[in-house]
């Protein structure tokens, strides 16, 4: 388990004794319980475990979508607690890519515009933006479909757009919450091939949450979670 504070690897993510408590009516639910974890640069790691084990909560905390009740989270050696809401948004925009189970594309935007959206937020100049979007759509196998809206695409195609959107900024890490859960097995394989290729060839770090055995089989590292805790952390480099 790579849970020590000092390691020879460059840590993209470091969590130290992180807990997340929710109120469900009058009952306090512990979604994460003093989790300590490090994700290294170039990792292709999966969080696995039963529903309610804390996988999505962990991804949300790492991505700055939620705030821990206790503990600290560093992203590229900067404590997320030091950032304002706007600064966290900027970190997400520039350093994190998200892929969601339900694709979560903006319905009024075409594939091109969804992939372009983050670059627009970054105020990337028009010509460069166009070049990068076209390149990333080709990379995910969507060239020719750039003018389609989400409701004109299959689930697999939508997930590819989501991946394109996640990687177009060349983030430090892609956080993917059950990315293959809503697609058929052929599409799931294609998506996994794509992610693996991006990890291998471009060194993008991936952290998944998944129940998918095929995805688990492809990762270098499997982090088993149960009841908000890390039960086991298998590294298979």
């Amino acid at each position: 388990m790579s849970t020590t504070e000092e390691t020879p690897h460059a840590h993209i993510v470091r969590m130290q004794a992180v807990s997340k408590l929710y109120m469900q009516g009058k009952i306090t639910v512990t979604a994460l319980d003093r989790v300590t974890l490090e994700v290294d640069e170039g990792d292709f790691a999966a969080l696995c475990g039963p529903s309610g084990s804390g996988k999505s909560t962990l991804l949300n905390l790492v991505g700055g979508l939620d705030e821990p009740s206790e503990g600290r989270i560093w992203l590229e050696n900067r404590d997320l607690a030091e950032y304002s809401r706007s600064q966290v948004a900027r970190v997400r925009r520039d350093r994190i890519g998200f892929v969601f189970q339900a694709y979560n594309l903006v319905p009024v935007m075409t594939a091109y515009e969804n992939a372009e959206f983050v670059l627009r937020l970054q105020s990337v100049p028009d010509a460069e933006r166009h070049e990068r979007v076209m390149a990333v759509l080709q990379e995910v196998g969507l060239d020719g479909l750039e003018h389609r809206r989400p409701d004109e695409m299959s689930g697999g195609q939508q997930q590819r757009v989501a991946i394109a959107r996640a990687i177009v900024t060349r983030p430090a890490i892609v956080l993917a919450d059950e990315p293959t859960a809503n697609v058929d097995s052929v599409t799931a394989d294609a998506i996994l091939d794509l992610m693996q290729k991006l990890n291998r060839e471009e060194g993008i770090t991936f952290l998944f949450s998944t129940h998918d055995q095929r995805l688990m089989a492809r990762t270098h590292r499997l982090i088993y979670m149960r009841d908000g805790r890390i039960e086991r952390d298998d590294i298979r480099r």
Partner: protein
Amino acid sequence: MIRLAWRNLWRNRRRTLITAFSIGFGVLLAVTFTGTGDYAYTNMIDAGASMGYGHVTIEPVGYNRTPTLDKRIGDSAALRADALSQPDVRDAIVRILGQGMFATASNSIGGSFLGVDPASETPAWSLLLRSLVRGNMLRDRDGSGVIIGSKMADHLNLDLGKKLVYTTTDASGEIVSEAARVRGIFHTGINEVDNAFVMLPIDRLRHVLGYRKGEATMVAIMLRDQRRARRVRNALQRRIGNGVAVLDWRQTQPDLAGIINIDRSSNYISQLLIGLLIAAGILNTLLMSVLERTREFGIMMAVGMSPGQLFRLIMTESFWLACIGLLMGTVITAPWYWYLATYGIDFSGSIGHDYSAGGVLIDPVFHIRLFAESIVAILAGLFTLAILAGLYPAWRAGRIPPVESLKAL
């Protein structure tokens, strides 16, 4: 962001159109209310001006408070020339206004007289001349003619060619009398005027009052646009100095000014209430639209949109909604405005032809006319309301934590 906001607006076409229509309807109501005011107030002020004082009046200091005939201006011709030098002035007329008793062998009545130069007076600047129903205008400045109101003629049993004796105090406070023959009878429809107003030749009146040539109680100034009254008054006062008083119609006709102020205030309150109703509609639309897209906003924030950018997106939607609404308002209001401005609606059946307020006759035909500044005020006001209505939904959208937004259906 501008394009995205535009597209977002058309995701629920019906709701957007209904809200835009409510803004448009607001434009129609605001134009109707404001246009009625602009038209009616201008008419009342112009009518008031033509009853004697003009839009701006040059008169002796203190005459407005105590209008006695010992107070007079000396070189009225020079003051008239000063007035005519102002670009906003269309005409300036020298007059003498005073109080007196008017009697025949059978009866007498108190009232006001207006000494006029027949050569200077035109129906455009004189309500009494406009309302002449029998006889003719006075012939010369030193004649013995008099023009009286229809009610006074009835009361004193007078007719054309009959003799009337008027009694007043002269410049030195002595009681003086003079006889005159009725040359014309006017009927304005305003009881106070028809019952107690006469028009006399100015030089004959000067003689009776002991005024020297050129002396008068006022120079009544007629403007091209009544809205310039205050500006002209100030400019003239600076030019002439403090030896005489320069007053605008609000000061010479405080009753009329009061009525207009009250009416304008109630008009503003009505428009404010309408505006609030419209703002509530816009707020509802944008809030619904924000609540429906909570998850989408979560996605946008997850991929890096800041709360500030989200705020700007919703505000841009609000901007577009306001633009569509104002455009729709212009389209639906234009024919309505054209009809009322051109033909109007005749209410003489219910209020008659002789309805007056503040001593001024009200036009029974409901017309509208909108000043340029009113158009700007209406568009800017409704636009601002629409933008303000977007503030809360925009603020709210940015306040929802991304993780909560993503959980929304």
